[in-house]
């Protein structure tokens, strides 16, 4: 047996896969019981009564065991360094969970009258005003359920504004070639088409921006969607000029707020000319990512766009009480049921309140410091197209590496990523925003020890590529499973257990 085979065997050889719940079913056994029915029965008419569903069940202890075993098979921020670029995987404070779980918050019905939920409405009103201040914009709507949902909502708001101002023909949205995939997808959902604006060295190409505006026709443009710092991890030094060009075309500047972690307390989007933006509270404001949600995507807009925000809006009355206002005649309507991701916003409130204004500024400073420290330590081994500290070119809160010299030795980017898993590090974002890149975002909550360990891991992998390349090519060697066959999964999708 080779060393590599021995490593695989030692790490996962005999470890059984966790059976599916459907394979654990025990007829007649369920994990919880019910009190006896305390009212007379009413017959269920034959026309509406259904047959039996086929959901499995088994005893309570095995339910606990099942999910405990599954949890053992997950990397997480709690357990691992998780530098997933553009996702801001920062620490999730447990005071946030504590607050959201209070019965006075968690048990409220969404259609209750305002006078029974004054505490909750106060929390939402305070969250709203705090997010307005951080954005430097006139008004926030808390309704969108996630970042992409916020993009959609804000674009609807902007389009409604133009329709109301006799410019319904503005149907083209400009987006950078490094934009999040959600940007163009959100445009499509708003019935707008997308034109791409080039970036050069991670910065918007101003000449190309002007060119595209000229080609499309200024009068046809809804907005330019920009991410700042860009998805390449760079502050756009020309942001003011970009805003001027966009406004000159009569269009609006939309900020994708995914990277707000680099701006908190340092720059306010409204101050550089953004007309509308969304937040991702699960990125910037420490609400847990939960294996893919819940997120929350509040949007902030200028005063001229505010009349079109969704309803209801949380307001404070003259007497200091709070209420949900529906009287916004130009509203785009509703983008989700009820009010907002309330439970997520409790956590968001707790985080912003814990940080305070100075803390928020320290968050962005430390996030940027941590990223630059990692970049500085790694840039000689992992080439970085946009990072050159000697010439004053720094990154923001994340950086991009295209490790070409390592790839040239006979490994793929995926090999490197999978080897990181062996070292207990969640791989960074890959192949985006540029091909063959890793995008690393350490966040501000990592300790220096954790950053140094990551540097050691990355240098170790580079060393292995030179000395024992099979270790990297055949990785992961020490995880529960070998590489998953994603091609067959997509070709012959099996989405349910039969």
């Amino acid at each position, binding site marked *: 047996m080779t060393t590599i085979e021995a490593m*695989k065997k030692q790490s996962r050889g005999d470890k059984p896969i966790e059976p599916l719940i459907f394979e654990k*079913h025990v007829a007649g056994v369920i*994990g*919880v019981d*019910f009190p006896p029915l*305390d*009212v007379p029965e009413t017959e269920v008419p034959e026309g509406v009564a259904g047959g039996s569903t*086929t*959901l499995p069940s088994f005893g*309570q202890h095995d339910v*606990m065991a099942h*999910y*405990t075993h599954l*949890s053992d098979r*997950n990397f997480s921020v709690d357990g691992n360094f998780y530098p*997933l670029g553009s996702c801001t995987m920062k620490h*999730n404070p447990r005071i946030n969970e504590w607050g959201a*779980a209070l019965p*006075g*918050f*968690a*048990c*409220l019905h969404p*259609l209750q*009258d305002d006078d*029974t939920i*004054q*505490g*909750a409405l106060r929390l939402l009103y305070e969250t709203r005003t705090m997010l307005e201040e951080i954005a*430097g914009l006139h008004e926030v709507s808390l309704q969108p359920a996630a970042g992409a*949902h916020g993009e959609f909502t804000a674009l609807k708001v902007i389009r409604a504004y133009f329709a109301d101002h006799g410019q319904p023909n503005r149907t083209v949205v400009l987006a950078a070639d490094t934009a999040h995939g959600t940007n163009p*997808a*959100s445009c*499509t959902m708003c019935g707008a*088409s997308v034109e791409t604006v080039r970036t050069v060295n991670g910065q918007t190409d101003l000449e190309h921006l002007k060119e595209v505006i000229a080609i499309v026709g200024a009068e046809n443009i809804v907005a330019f969607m920009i991410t700042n710092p860009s998805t390449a991890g760079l*502050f756009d030094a020309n942001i003011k000029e970009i805003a001027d060009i966009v406004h000159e075309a009569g269009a609006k500047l939309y900020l994708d707020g995914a990277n707000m972690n680099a701006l908190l*307390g340092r*720059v306010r989007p409204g101050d550089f000319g953004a007309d509308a933006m969304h937040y991702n509270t699960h990125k910037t404001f420490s609400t847990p990512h939960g294996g*893919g949600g*819940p997120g929350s995507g509040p949007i902030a807009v200028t005063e001229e766009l505010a009349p079109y925000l969704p309803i209801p809006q949380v307001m404070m009355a003259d007497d200091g009480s709070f209420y949900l206002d529906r009287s916004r005649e130009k509203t785009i309507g*509703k*983008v*989700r*049921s009820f009010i907002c991701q*309330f439970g997520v916003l409790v956590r968001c409130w707790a985080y912003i309140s814990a940080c*305070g204004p*100075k803390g928020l500024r320290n968050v962005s400073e*430390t996030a940027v*410091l941590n990223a*630059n*420290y990692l970049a*500085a330590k790694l840039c000689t081994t992992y080439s970085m197209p946009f990072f050159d500290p000697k010439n004053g070119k720094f990154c923001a809160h994340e950086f991009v590496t295209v490790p070409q010299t390592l790839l040239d030795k006979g490994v793929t980017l995926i090999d490197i990523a999978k080897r990181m898993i062996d070292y207990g590090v969640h791989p960074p974002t890959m192949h985006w925003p540029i091909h063959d890149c890793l995008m690393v975002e350490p966040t501000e909550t990592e300790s220096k020890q954790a950053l140094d360990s990551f540097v050691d891991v990355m240098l170790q992998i580079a060393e292995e590529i030179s000395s024992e390349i099979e270790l990297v090519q055949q990785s992961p060697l020490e995880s529960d499973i070998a*590489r*998953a066959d*994603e091609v067959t*999964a997509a070709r012959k999708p*099996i*989405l*349910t*257990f039969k």
Partner: protein
Amino acid sequence: MDYTQLNTTQRQEMYDAIGIQSIDELFDAIPSEIRCDDGLDLMPALSELELQRSLAEMASHNHGPHDMACFMGCGAYDHFYPALIDQLISRGEFLTSYTPYQAEASQGSLQAFFEFQTQIARLTGLDIANASLYDGATAVAEAALLATNTTRRKEVLVASTMHPEYIAVLRTVLSDVDIKITMLDATDGIISPATVEAKMSDTVAGVIVQSPNIWGQIEDWDGCFEKAHSVPKTAGIAVFNPIACGMLKTPGACGADIAAGEGQPLGNALNLGGPYLGLLAAKESYTRKMPGRLVGMTTDEEGRRVFCLTLQTREQHIRGAKATSNVCTNQGLMALRASMFMTTLGSDGIKEMATQSWHKAHYLAKEIAKLKGWEMKYNGDFFNECTFTCPCDVTKVVEFCKSRGVLPGVAAAGRRMQGLSTGDELIIAVTEKRTKHEMDALVALLSEVSA
């Protein structure tokens, strides 16, 4: 506390490694005229102890199902869920992970979502389900887009008896993409198949009917979808309550092609309306047009059964403007809660919950119907919710009950119901959590206020 962990010495070491003198150099790219150097105008930081006090204080100003008997429904229900869910969901391995892009580091979430998809498919009687959407309303909107994208047709028929907020969201979502909404008027509180038949044409992509509907009435899904299918490829879209599927005919059994619903009743707290989760299930033929995350079963290089995200070429991060939806972050943790709930209860447990809700709702309805002047608005079959016309001002009823610690239901004319009604109607929901004692107390209050 801002949760950073560096001391001054460490910061200096890091400055040295980067080659800077001060942190400001890292922000040099930001033009000075847009910097916010005066600081944000926010309240000063609170310590954790102060946060606990503030949060508890704000929570204490709220009253609801935790300290009142709740008969409110209309899309959000005060159902029981086992204590183990809160415990398991708090595990950081679930709570603090993200979308499982890296299969080798995320088998836990992936297997759980695969199990969830299977549970939802089985619960609805359909072939496939995705790994969740934002909520019931957005799931309905995505279902409509799934039907229009599949058929390339430009019209959907929508039951006027659907939740008014779902209709409102559908209007928002469809307003700029050139898809026409044709409303189906109700007859005796439900949609008659004849009404569907009258509106059917070969431009119709889907027929959307919610059952139980906003009034609590059980709709004739079979009849409506049969009419929908009079035009080939038109989708019957069932908007469903997952608990009702435990005892009533499922969407699949009634001929639905797509099912969309609010998943909150499956083990999720009321949370003032969110986070919840949208459920979306469909027949297999819709697989490649489904919005949202899908987890598939496959094998690893060593032949082991494993799970991974699949069909990602449908999704925004690969397909951009041509994606089937813009959804990225969904409601993973809520889906996990729902799955844990279904695993703990199984078919038998969910049937028990559904059956108890049925019996209790019918008991309460019979008791209220005995009161002078209280009449059921509609006489069709209902599940756990029914509508009464009050003999007096409904606001007076609600206020009186509230003052006695009871949330008696949802006023159909309430300003939150989007103009559903102008009458004095109360929509009353009963879950398995309500006791006979609480129901008898409500009846006494209704009797007293309308006397």
